[in-house]
């Protein structure tokens, strides 16, 4: 190893450590700023567009799109639905008055992107294709689609040949066909076949007098959506939704009653 090698290396190492020191100073400065901000009780994280500050004691524009039992519309205003009820109590929590905006999912997503809608209720799940256009909350409730049957009776594997009711034209109809060997029986009103095996959402089982047979057709994690990057508002909403699973299930059972 010739001499010039080590002398060169020396120079380089020096310039290298200078940049490291700079980075260190930068990080330190940042953490100091952060510590001060947190100590001063500032809002953290904050919204780039200040949504939370605006709705606090002001107006919250909530976009709604019909999606029974999450959002049930009557004319231009929602008449009920699990998400609608949740949004109402969230609005009370932040001290906001709700202004409903009705539209299709796409219209609402576009409006949220432009900051014209603060919150979207449309029975969205975390698999929704709007994932990249709006910010989803963490899933606040998980629902399952199952084959329900009256308790105490036994059925052959995969319900072979058993007539199983399913709502006409729903995705459950297709899933039932694919996943089981049941005789798919589409009906317009599930309540009319109360007490018979049916493919239903888990929150409807009790109402229909059915129990879960353990055959799961589908699972969805439900979310609400807000404008991308409005993190203070998002965090506030998520904190509100956390640990409310029981309350939400009750809401669903009530709102989803067939």
């Amino acid at each position: 190893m010739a001499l010039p090698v080590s002398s060169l290396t020396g120079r380089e190492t020096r310039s290298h450590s200078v940049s490291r020191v700079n980075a260190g100073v930068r990080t330190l400065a940042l953490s100091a700023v952060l510590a001060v901000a947190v100590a001063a009780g500032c809002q953290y994280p904050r919204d780039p567009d200040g949504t939370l500050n605006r709705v606090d004691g002001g107006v919250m524009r909530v976009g709604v799109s019909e999606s029974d039992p999450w959002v049930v519309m009557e004319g231009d205003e929602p008449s009920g639905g699990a998400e609608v009820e949740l949004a109402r109590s969230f609005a009370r929590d932040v001290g906001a008055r709700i202004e409903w905006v009705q539209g299709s999912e796409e219209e609402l997503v576009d409006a949220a992107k432009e900051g014209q809608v603060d919150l979207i209720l449309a029975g969205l799940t975390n698999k929704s294709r709007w994932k990249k256009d709006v910010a989803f909350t963490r899933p606040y409730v998980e629902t399952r689609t199952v084959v329900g049957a009256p308790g105490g009776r036994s059925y052959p594997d995969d319900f072979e040949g058993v007539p199983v009711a399913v709502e006409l034209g729903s995705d459950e109809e297709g899933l039932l066909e694919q996943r089981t060997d049941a005789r798919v029986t589409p009906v317009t009103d599930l309540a009319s076949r109360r007490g018979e095996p049916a493919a239903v959402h888990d929150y409807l089982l009790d109402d229909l007098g059915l129990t879960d047979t353990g055959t799961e057709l589908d699972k969805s994690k439900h979310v609400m959506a807000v404008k991308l990057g409005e993190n203070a508002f998002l965090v506030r909403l998520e904190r509100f939704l956390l640990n409310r699973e029981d309350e939400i299930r009750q809401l669903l059972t009530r709102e989803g009653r067939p």
Partner: protein
Amino acid sequence: VTPDDRRPEHHDREREGPSREFELPRELVDQQRKAVRLEWITLAYMASAVVLLFLTLGQSQAMKAAWIEDLLSLLPPAAFLIASRLRNRDPSEKFPWGLHRAVSVAYVFAALALLVMGAFVFFDSAIKLVLAEHPPIGVIQLFGQEIWLGWVMIGALVYSGLPAVFLGRAKRKLADDLHDKVLYADAQMNRADWMTVSAAIGGIIGIGFGLWWADAVAAIFISLDIVHDGWKNVRAAVHDLMDARPRRHDAREYHPIVERMNEAVNRCDWVEQGAVRLREEGHVFTGEVMVVPRERALAGDGELLDRLEELADHLLSLEWKVYDIVIVPVKEIDIPSPTMPSRAGKSPKKEESPA
């Protein structure tokens, strides 16, 4: 013509256990072993970081970049380890020169990984800025506590980035000792790693303050630095494959050995004129020495052969990296060589000073 294709005497040929390091002088064998261990550690650690980031934050857009970077930084250590296994293999019928060049190929991969990483960070950040993407960061529930996901991200980033500082430093030192380009490129990769990680951390803190552009801007500046390093290494790697004149392992300047050998050859009293050309075969140098012997050296029986052999031994003892040379007595020298009096059209270009 005396092709000196035996392994030179001064290279300790006693094979040391399973590692069979005959490319390196004995005092560097330990360093090489250390480097191999370090690269295994890097590989294992980065793999764990990749898994951690994927499991905890894989679906978050803001962390996807960090994840891809970690994935890319697996490439140089893997290339190094594979090349370390191959390069000591004996020449075979299929590979008559042995597999020294495995190291050159590894270097191409390592350099490309660095360049791709820089380019990726640049475009990723530029797109974020142009589309004005506001990254959403919500709340996560950990051990019954709800905390801002930003803090968790920072934790994961520190886990993936902090050891890179130390690994990079250690590798750089070893790369200097071993004159190892792959290791050197990997050290730069580690440096790139922790720099992008600190940018990402700064960015997340910035996002918390409502500055959605913070991480993109920080990352763009850092990406320029990485692209620069990557480009330099890719260039050096391609030059090596094209048998360019050997450079130091950090590509800063030409390796001094060609000049030293030239001087040694031309100092011999029986040599009228001599010229040396070397190429890099991975870790080691090989090449030809052309000599025009003086009249009197040609007389005498077998004396020339002795002289050639003596010269070969002497030249090989100058530098451990020179692994194999062929000395060719010629009537006239027609290869460009650094200290040769320049001739029309064939004079070597002045040394460009690399950045």
